């Protein structure tokens, strides 16, 4: 997969040298940061043997809550409220999946629709304008040479890596995804850790939603359409197994890089946006196919 990424970058760079410009590299990484955060949350859900279909509409709900609270109580409160709104929706997902034992696919599908509806109700369907100008810094500003969203995404990757590889929670996520029955029999409190999985995914979506709100400097109830599908694609393209137990932060990073570089690169080399969809669809299937073929050979 890293070879594919390098290959893509070389091809795009050869056709349009601007691909390697500092502005554009900042660009790609900034555009990828939203997908990266969603995909990290999705990594937890898929690794644990579940799935989180709600993350796309959570962006919209978070955006509306963040913008409304920010107008009432100020910058910091709005950001906090946005992230917590994501976490709260994740908690609801977790309760329904772990306690009521509704399959994750159905529970989060319900949240996908509900969260979009809630975003529309809270906002009356209209964008929420008039946010403080300083908020734009979060979406468009720089820390040294790095765009702030990129920095946040990198920190999130590091954090997720530590959680998955160094903590008990992380080990249990893999255990539940590999064989849930065995996890139950070995005394893991599966219900509790499943809840944690979806809260984590919700919190990542919360951070992503706040950054996206800053990028568009307004609360937008229509944000995030089909982003849940791209987040799933990012997890599996890199080599994460869709049924759980296999994958992690690195494979997800690979998937995010492929999708992000493709999206930006195809624009820069002026491939029609209609054809882009076909290319991306083919790559999603192709990447997983190659992966499975390699697995079978071993």
């Amino acid at each position, binding site marked *: 997969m890293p070879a594919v990424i390098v290959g893509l970058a070389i091809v795009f760079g050869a056709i349009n040298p601007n691909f390697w410009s500092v502005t554009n590299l900042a660009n790609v990484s900034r555009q990828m940061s939203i997908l990266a955060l969603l995909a990290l949350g999705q990594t937890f859900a898929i690794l644990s043997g579940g799935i989180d279909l709600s993350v796309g509409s959570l962006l919209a709900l978070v955006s509306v809550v963040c913008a409304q609270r920010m107008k009432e109580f100020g910058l910091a409160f709005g950001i906090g409220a946005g992230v917590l709104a994501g976490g709260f929706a994740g908690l609801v997902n977790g309760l329904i999946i772990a306690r009521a034992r509704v399959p994750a696919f159905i529970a989060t599908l319900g949240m996908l629709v509900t969260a979009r509806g809630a975003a529309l109700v809270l906002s009356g369907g209209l964008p929420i304008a008039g946010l403080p100008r300083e908020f*734009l810094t979060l979406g468009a500003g720089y820390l040294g040479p790095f765009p702030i969203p990129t920095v946040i995404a990198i920190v999130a990757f590091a954090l997720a890596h530590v959680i998955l590889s160094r903590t008990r929670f992380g080990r249990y996520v893999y255990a539940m995804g590999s064989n849930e029955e065995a996890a139950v029999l070995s005394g893991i409190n599966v219900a509790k850790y499943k809840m944690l999985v979806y809260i984590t995914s919700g919190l990542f979506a919360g951070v992503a939603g706040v950054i996206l709100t800053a990028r*568009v400097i307004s609360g937008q109830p229509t*944000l995030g359409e089909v982003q849940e599908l791209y987040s799933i694609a990012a997890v599996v393209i890199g080599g994460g197994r869709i049924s759980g137990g296999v994958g992690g932060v690195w494979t997800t990073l690979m998937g995010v890089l492929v999708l992000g570089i493709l999206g930006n690169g195809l624009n820069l080399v002026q491939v029609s*946006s209609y054809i882009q969809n076909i290319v991306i669809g083919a790559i999603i299937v192709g990447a997983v196919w190659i992966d499975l073929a390699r697995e079978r050979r071993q």
Partner: protein
Amino acid sequence: MDNLIRRCAAASVVALMMAGCGGGTQPPAASSAPVSPANAVTEYPRPAKPAKSYRIGVSIPHLANPHYVGQAYGYIDEAQQLGAQITLLEAGGYEHLDKQVSQMEDLVASRVDAIIIAAISGPGTVGAVEAAVAAGIPVINVNVMTDSDKVVTRIRSDDDVIGRMQADFMGERLKSGGNVVMLRGAPGTSWAEIRGNAFRQQIAAKYPTVKILGEQYSQSTPADGLRLMEDFLQTFPQINGVYNGADSTAVGAAQAVVSAHKAGSIVMTATDFQIDTEKFIRDGVISASVLQQPVTMGRWGVRAAIDYLEKKSVPPVMFTGLMTATKDNLGTLDLATVRAPAGWTPPVR
């Protein structure tokens, strides 16, 4: 002034053509940008062909609506006349604001000479527009307004007049009283806000017997218009009029009206003139539509970009003209500024 404009708008319903009258004085709604339409320019001739071949990036909401196909033709044909190259990007619909923002960033990264934007969201595009300007790339705002005040110029229809023209048509037809529902169009766009608000104000001010029962925002597609109108017809048994901020919802709503066997007994007004709209006007389902000139918008956008790059002065606000189409004048309309030539397809990037 205010009065004069009202009369001007009212007169234009009867008149065939109204090439951008002075303009509304109502302050635009919260989500639309501050403009001063009173001294808007209504003529903008083609400049001389510059020595340099400029690269111009264009970001529009989508191409599923013939309105934007006409606009795309305006950009590309005008660019050919002036030796410029267009990179045309479409975001796939009014729900994909994040995609438009990314496309703007990609245009900045590919170092185009100027960017033309029809903004998916007024407030939502401020960051992207200002990032482009900060990178030294001038931004021309066409058709749908961004809230950023850093743009070189704003080129659009007088949306306030469009709303008032529909209100006057509706009000005259429903003089003895009637119930109206509104399909406003895409939430957060300047056109949906300004036209809808102007319609409401004009009805309230001039036609007290006309009652507005309800309004809905939606994505600007026939499917949404159909769904909303079916539901309106269930909710309110007595509907006499339907306002449409755009004809994309109107052609769907017209379908619902036909299915309910109410064609002709409900006054339907719209904006723009896709083929289906023309057909529904011919069949007497849609009563009137206010025609914008998207091809002209595209042409003026390119002219403004080139004038600015050639260091010539560019007027800050420009209004392209309007026409009203009814069953009676269908054969007489000059559509060269409204539609792309038949069979023309946009080279999408």
